[in-house]
């Protein structure tokens, strides 16, 4: 039964909502553990049950290898985000918080497996509507309210633009099914195709926070509860890429690729460069991570432009490598800000003495993001640059390499604060709840394993993108 994980997610969310009513206040901490371990269990189930046969689940949903690959990413992101939330102020003991997270998860899973335009649009909305609420969840905090509203306004506009693109595809082809639309579009003229492709591209660029549709990200990440920001920057971004891969490669015929390819490669270069340059000057940890996550979307776009299986697999692998590293970085920020009450980078001072474990995990995470071995980011960047050179896009690899140097600068600056700056006053040991410990340990281990034992994961990424080339 291909949709079993989705069904279980739905039941898990309902269970949490139900328990929220029954459990007394002090026991509600169980809800977070339930959400985290429930997601993890579903992840294990999905991994063991997936046969990659690409079975139809319904006329509009197809759980192929691409969908199951990304589903695993989302589940991992949700499990870690739930673990991070347990000890968060205002969010940790709220049943509706976890239920919203899981409903959003469900939407993300459907996004990755949608094979129909209407289904895709509905799935995207299903994923983002709970996120608008989650971003503004801290009702007492005006920045959180601002984040929720901003995300809603930008997101709704982007969705509207994307739907307009979808409606154009339907208008030109009379089909809502992606495969049927793809066949019909083969006969369409170039102007028609580009008119339809541009709005879709713009809408999805918003989801992955690519330049010039990135403006929302820093404000939203800064204001939203940290676990939500972590979820937005990893799982939701990955879902955007899943749809981007499917729509651009499977729907629009290869003849248009040189046009949108040129556009996307410029977008990739601009996203990397702008994200990294702006990340360099940030004083707030969450804003820094927001700009860095913008930059990472730029790197991941490189693989998309290559249009060959190696490059797309490199993008998928990059997202896989980026996910645990970014989650770990956000976990450390959440940990420190829970203790210090602020998200300034300066709050990281003295981390290596206050909690050596968190400092080492942060080191692994940031070095992985910077593309340093033996962590996952090294191989991931290498594959992207290699695929770009292979596809005769060496200039993108050059831009990416130059950006890696800039990125290394600001990641090192952060590590410098964590390892070198003395903590103001007494270097009190950091309160380190078990949930964050598990999340951080798992992410750091994943970053290291993916960086050394590379081949099976890259093969999985390769298998994931294969359906895009079968049509």
């Amino acid at each position, binding site marked *: 039964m291909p949709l079993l994980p989705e069904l279980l997610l739905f039941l898990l969310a309902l269970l949490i909502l139900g328990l929220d009513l029954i459990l007394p206040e002090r026991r509600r901490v169980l809800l977070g553990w339930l959400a985290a371990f429930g997601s993890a269990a579903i992840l294990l189930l999905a991994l063991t049950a997936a046969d990659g046969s690409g079975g139809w689940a319904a006329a509009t949903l197809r759980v192929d290898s691409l969908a199951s690959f990304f589903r695993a990413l989302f589940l991992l992101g949700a499990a870690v985000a739930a673990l991070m939330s347990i000890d968060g102020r205002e969010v940790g003991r709220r049943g509706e918080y976890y239920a919203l997270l899981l409903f959003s998860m469900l939407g993300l899973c459907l996004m990755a497996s949608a094979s129909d335009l209407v289904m895709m649009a509905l799935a995207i909305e299903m994923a983002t509507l709970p996120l608008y609420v989650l971003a503004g969840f801290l009702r007492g905090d005006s920045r959180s309210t601002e984040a929720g509203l901003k995300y809603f306004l930008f997101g709704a506009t982007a969705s509207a633009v994307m739907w307009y693109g979808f409606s154009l595809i339907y208008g030109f082809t009379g089909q809502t099914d992606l495969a049927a639309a793809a066949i019909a579009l083969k006969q369409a003229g170039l102007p028609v195709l580009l008119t339809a492709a541009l709005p879709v591209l713009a809408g999805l660029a918003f989801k992955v926070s690519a330049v010039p549709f990135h403006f929302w990200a820093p404000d939203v990440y800064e204001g939203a509860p940290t676990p939500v920001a972590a979820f937005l920057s990893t799982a939701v971004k990955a879902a955007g890429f899943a749809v981007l891969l499917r729509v651009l490669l499977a729907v629009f015929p290869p003849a248009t690729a040189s046009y949108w390819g040129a556009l996307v490669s410029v977008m990739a270069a601009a996203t990397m460069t702008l994200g990294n340059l702006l990340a360099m000057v940030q004083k707030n940890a969450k804003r820094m991570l927001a700009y860095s996550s913008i930059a990472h979307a730029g790197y991941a776009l490189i693989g998309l432009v290559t249009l060959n299986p190696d490059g797309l697999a490199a993008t998928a692998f990059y997202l896989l490598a980026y996910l645990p590293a970014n989650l770990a970085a956000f976990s450390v920020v959440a940990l420190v800000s829970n203790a210090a009450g602020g998200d300034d980078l300066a709050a990281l001072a003295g981390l290596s003495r206050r909690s050596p474990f968190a400092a080492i995990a942060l080191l692994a995470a940031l070095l992985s993001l910077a593309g340093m071995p033996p962590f996952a980011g090294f191989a991931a960047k290498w594959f992207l640059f290699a695929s770009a*050179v292979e596809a005769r896009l060496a200039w993108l690899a050059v831009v990416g390499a130059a950006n890696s140097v800039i990125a290394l600068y600001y990641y090192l600056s952060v590590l410098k604060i964590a390892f070198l700056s003395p903590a103001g006053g007494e270097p009190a040991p950091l309160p380190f709840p078990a949930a964050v410990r598990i999340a951080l340990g798992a992410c750091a281990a994943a970053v290291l394993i993916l960086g050394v034992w590379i081949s099976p994961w890259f093969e999985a990424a390769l298998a994931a993108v294969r359906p895009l080339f079968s049509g």
Partner: protein
Amino acid sequence: MTSFPLLSLLVFLPIASALALFLFPAGSRRAIRWFALAVSAASLALSAAAYLAYDLPAGGYQLEEYLEWIPRWGIGYHVGVNGISLPLVLLTGIVMFTGVLISRGIDERPREFFAFLFLLAGGVFGVFVSLDLFLLFFFYEIAVFPMYLLIALWGWPKTREYAAMKLTLYLFLGSMVALIGALVLVFSTTPATFDLIRLEAAGFPADLQRTVFPFVFLGFAVLGGLFPFHNWSPDGHVAAPTAVSMFHAGVLMKLGAFAALRVGILLLPEGARFHMPWILILALVNVLYGAFIAMVQTDFKYVIGFSSVSHMGLVMLGFATLNSDGLLGASLQMFSHGVMTALFFAVVGMVYDRTHTREISALGGLARKMPLAALAFIVGALASMGMPGFSGFVAEFPVFLGVWQTRPAAAVAAAVGIVVTAAYILLVVRRVFFGAMSAEHDRIVSGIRVKDSIALILLMCILIGMGVYPAWIATLAESGVQSVMRVLGN
């Protein structure tokens, strides 16, 4: 193929020990120091075992190991050594052992210090034995990064943050430039492979070689300290704690030169021939500029820092000749300079620990208080001047021979560098170790410890042993050079 994975053991012993160090409680300094010493001694023994296991008459790559790693990209875990890399492996073992021996002064977080130092050592061993391009870059970055923390955390407080950041960014930028060049190269072959031996045999088209060569060679030569990309190195040397300076100047700069040879010249012989004239000029600038700048330094450690730039210029000069004499000289110079500069930095560290100053004008008469250190420094000085009977002569003579064969004028100019070297190094010897000693130093300066003496004696013995009986290292280097000459086609 050997059944015993000697080289893997050599690479992974330091890395595993780096992780194992975190099992020690942070407070148990004594245990940590002894464990570190044991690991470094074992690494030295393993590198010596590799030296002894190498079958010289057979030549070529030996002790090879191969494992599939990422088959989709043609990437394998492929290691092996030949006559070029084996002396450097041995050098790394020597510097690692002596560096740990003299590191008693690290009082702040010794556990983390040795962990990062071993990680660095593992990366360095890894680069020297890599026969796969991906693996080479993998270890190269592992070797570069711990440097940042080692300098930033344990370095000289005044400049450490600046120097550490400058060094890391310079080297990372260089490696990125080299990476792009290497990728362009790899994807001009079908099917793409990252195996260096197969790439060596690929025979890339001449214009591709000419285009790619500057990127690959210069990208790595940044770490080799080639002018005008040497700027990170004196600052880095000076800011680093003693053991790290020894590693840094002794081994890490060789890493750059080695990779420039391994990936630049060996894969792109035609590119090398085409571009060598101007690289020869840059190397010449290195030799002269480094020597003249060293002459006017007032800081003891900066003198040695710039002397490294000057001596690495001789390595590059040897490369630039592309003939067997020059390459042999370059290969020997890498080994000789590694040992020599490790000795210099060890002595500088000992002097600084006791006098708390590195201003040459404030020092003097130290030979009375620490005679062995003075003797060691003088041996190093004689080696660095290229005095017969010391390693420097054995290394520098073939370089000059090689340069004379291609560009006699360059040989004459480079000889000026040797004269200047003699001038500044003897000046330093006289001012620091002889003459009058300030009353305050007379009171506070103590003799050196046993472990320090062992390290200095070992380094001195190698410098003199190589000068008196060079065959033990020169025959090995010669077999390596022959393999390079075969690739160069003459």
